[in-house]
């Protein structure tokens, strides 16, 4: 009975905190978090980087790292969400990835504006080489995923010369010729802003899960205490 979506909604309306807390005790939401982050990563790597030849910039590979933290957080918690240690590791990795991601996205947005505008001031410039959190040499371990090969602040496709592309591939290359935008013709919502939006949505969802869990379990403790008295 509980599997029905309508029941889920009814539960959520009548006692939201207990319902969300119960959900984060189950695997589903954790798998959703890992899968959503993995899907974005695969889109960036397989579609944009390899198929459309948009080389990743420095902040872009940091953003990938942030999404990977969420993937691992989701997987670890999903092993057994009722196990408190695994769940805490999931929350820590998830929140850490999201917060890092928000910082990187804001920085990328600033760089993007400086790189595309007339005013080059106010940004730090382009790094000589990437530096990942904890000093992880991800760029030498997995260069295909983490070595920034694009110019900082730019993500327009740079297809190799003298290669024939399929119609779809050519269309995508032309469509994003001035870089990735949600609506390229209007230069509306760049990659940094889209990532920022994704991280903020994740932050709200994971935040709701975490807060519901804390509130429910604190109350439960209070209840137990009153019962004991």
């Amino acid at each position, binding site marked *: 009975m509980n599997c029905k979506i309508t029941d889920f909604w009814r539960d959520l309306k009548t006692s939201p905190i207990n319902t969300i807390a119960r959900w984060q005790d189950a695997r589903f939401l954790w798998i959703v978090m890992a899968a959503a982050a993995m899907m974005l990563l695969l889109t960036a790597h397989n579609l944009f980087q390899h198929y459309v030849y948009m080389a990743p910039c420095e902040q872009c590979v940091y953003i990938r790292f942030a999404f990977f933290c969420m993937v691992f957080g989701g997987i670890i918690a999903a092993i057994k969400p009722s196990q408190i240690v695994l769940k805490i590791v999931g929350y820590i990795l998830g929140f850490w990835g999201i917060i890092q991601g928000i910082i990187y996205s804001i920085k990328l947005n600033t760089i993007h504006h*400086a*790189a595309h505008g*007339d005013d*080059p*001031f*106010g*940004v*730090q*410039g*382009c*790094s*000589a*080489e990437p530096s990942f959190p904890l000093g992880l040499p991800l760029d030498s371990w997995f260069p295909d995923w983490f070595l920034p090969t694009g*110019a*900082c*602040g*730019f993500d*327009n496709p*740079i297809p*190799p*010369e003298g290669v024939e592309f399929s119609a779809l591939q050519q269309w995508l290359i032309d469509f994003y010729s001035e870089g990735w935008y949600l609506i390229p013709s209007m230069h509306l919502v760049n990659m940094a802003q889209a990532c920022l939006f994704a991280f903020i949505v994740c932050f709200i969802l994971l935040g709701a899960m975490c807060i519901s869990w804390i509130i429910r379990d604190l109350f439960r403790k209070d209840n137990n205490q009153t019962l004991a008295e």
Partner: protein
Amino acid sequence: MMLKRKVGALLITAVALLGADFQEGVNYTKLDQPLNVEKNTIVKVFSFTCPFCYKYDKAVTEPVITQVLKDKPEASFEVWHLYSKGKYGQQGSNLMAVARARDIKAGITSVFDKHGLLKKMKFTYYKAYHDKNQRWDSGEDDFYKAGFEILGISSKADFEKEVASPEVQELLKRWEPAYPIAKIQGIPAFVVNGKYLLKTQAIKSRDYMVELVEYLLKK
């Protein structure tokens, strides 16, 4: 009325603060390992693959440094190409060093001289990389083509001979610390007197940059 005066006073203080002493850690970084350069030298580290270097060279570096050299004629300005960045970083450095060595031989001291080969080399590769999106996938020979044309060199053997010459080797050696400098906060990087690295992020305008460089030259 009081409020107006207060706001005015506040603005004056703010302006005074901005114009007043620059601070280590805020406006510039003191290098742990100073560069081995003469006094009054300003060094710029750049790579032709770096979009902000291109942006600075198009609109910032020349007017700023020209102003500084006008105010302080005893100062001198050098540009160091970063060999480690990009697939053809070292090849780029070799081309730039050969161009610069020839300029020096020809008596062209200023890197802004419109007859200078270095200036031509720099902008040729900036434009190829950023405006035409060239990446020279077919290899080194393809990369060298435009550079050889500027230098009037017809074979790679001739070029390699020139790179091996003591003047060019000396320049390449001098540019080597470009890498540790670039690692600190990225490029373009400006170092004054071999000791003070400008905080690029804090640079808000050309005038600010002139003031900061002159302040650090005096330090």
